[in-house]
């Protein structure tokens, strides 16, 4: 089964760009693997749903702010276990939540993965208000582990 790996976030807004950085490294390490497609986008809601069209299995990599975990803490869960609406780059105030958008798409018979087949790999971030391309040290330090987690998930389909 082919897997679509997507880095989410804003690449010029500090730690918010961590999803892109992980995805870019995953792309480098899976360049010869025809079963893996990697992309980096700044999308949410309907636009993200549209990007997932046709994918059977998806890995979303994103910054998360729970406020309860140390900076750089790695977590992973499937979309059906998304802790709450306000987690993940899954929505926009100008749009709708990713889960809602996926339901809209499914009701239109658009081929979309099940929520349980959407894995979210999240890295705890705090510094997302300052324009910079640099990651903070604890978030940068989490990169290898996050990349390993994504690669591992690809090997255990």
């Amino acid at each position, binding site marked *: 089964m082919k897997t679509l790996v997507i880095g989410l976030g804003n690449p010029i807004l500090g730690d918010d760009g961590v999803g892109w950085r992980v995805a870019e490294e995953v792309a480098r390490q899976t360049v010869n693997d025809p079963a893996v497609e990697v992309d980096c986008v700044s999308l949410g809601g309907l636009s993200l749903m*549209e990007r997932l069209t046709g994918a059977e299995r998806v890995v979303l990599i994103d910054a998360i702010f729970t406020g309860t975990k140390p900076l750089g803490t790695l977590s992973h869960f499937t979309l059906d276990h998304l802790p709450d609406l306000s987690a993940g780059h899954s929505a926009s105030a100008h749009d709708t939540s990713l889960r809602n958008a996926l339901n809209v798409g499914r009701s239109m018979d*658009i081929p979309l993965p099940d929520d349980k087949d959407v894995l979210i790999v999240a890295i705890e971030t705090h510094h997302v208000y300052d324009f910079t391309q640099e990651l903070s040290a604890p978030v940068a330090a989490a990169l290898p582990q996050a990349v390993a987690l994504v690669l591992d998930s690809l090997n255990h389909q």
Partner: protein
Amino acid sequence: MAQRITIDPITRLEGHGKIEIFLNDEGDVANTYFQIPELRGFERFCVGRPVEEMPLLTNRICGVCPEAHHMAAAKAVDAVYHVEVPQAGKKLRELLYSAFYCTDHTTHFYALGGPDFILGPDAPVAERNILGVIHKVGLEIGGKVIQMRKYGHTVVEIIGGRKVHPCTSIPGGLTKGITEEQRKEIEQMGRWAIEFAQFSLKAFNDIVLSNKTYLDLIVGDVYTHKTYYMGLVDANNKVNFYDGKVRVVGPDGKEYVKYAPNEYTQNIAEHVEPWTYLKFPYLKNVGWKGLVDGPDSGIYMATPLSRLNAADGMATPLAQEEYDKMFKTLGGKPVHQRLAIHWARLVELLYAAERWVELATDPEITSPDYHAIPTATPTEGVGIVEAPRGTLTHHYWTDERGVVTKVNLVVGTTNNNAPITMSIKKAADSLIKKGNVNQGLLNMVEMAFRAYDPCFGCATHSLPGQMPLEVTVRDADGNPVQVLKQYVD
């Protein structure tokens, strides 16, 4: 006992927009404050970079309208290089922009603004979203919305090189043109978009305008402010999204001023309040008189409704008919009722679709003359476009090598900072009496937000899908005495 009420849209990453309502000793509203999170250091991030990178960088500021930032930046960079884009280049950019407008206005109407009307403002919050709209109106509507978005994205990709975040605008024009085959495809999609816009206006007519309760809500006093209105107009004073002069009309609807983009600093000043980092732009030559409306207050609005108020009409025939109908129904120009922004947005949707087809059938659109090589020494330049949410200004300064030395942006939401604050105050005034907070407050505030559609962070950040609000009523010591919640898990 003075009270403080905080309406707190709880968000994930970027902090959050926040509304503070202070009550006086009688328990009535004394003041309201609307605050949004500050994103820092954009100018510092840009300084030292080649200015031609700006159209790529600035479309990462905003996750909602990257195309608008791309276009404003492209025009500012043209101005920095003192280069005139050939007609075919201008038309290609405007074609891309028209298709983007169709996508953006569609999403706003069906996913955000429409649900309040289609399902009713009193419908359970969990149903007031696009899925609820589909359940109520039928699957067909959902399919059309998805199709409209797909076509809009496709045109952006064909001309802009990439979906959502276009990358083809450079100083003097574009990096590529379109083939006759692509032109045909774009034209076909545009013709479908016109039908879709007409379908949307009919749905608005059948569901909203024929319902007296909704019509009363639109024309009611709660969201009415008699301010100035701003919008870009073409040489005939018709609405234009991509190019032209900025025209401002007064509360009486008469032209107050019309100026070229590079004259904005002579016409717009920014007021600073100690309680928010977000500035309040106002008409410099009218002056800042506080958060009040009327001809003596320099507060202006920049939204779809503002553009229709500020122009003499629409440049396309079908949109002109709808323009006339809207103003006739609402009692003539200008329209001061903010909820009419939703209607104005649909009139603009039809205009954008018609313009799309006009440009796609323009004999010049496939011309290879879409770029002029800049030869002058770069200095300083201003680019203004109409973003879907309001007039968007980019102003760059460079050294003689074209390296950025200074940046100033005035974005849609900033223009509307004062009107949004005024609408919130008026809603609060009507729903808070003698310390009693009506449960409808959250909804009324949310409806005001939805009409203006503010970009909180104007960043690629995303907020939760439904705008979560939390109102905390506080006594004089800051102790919470009452909490109202919506959409908060």
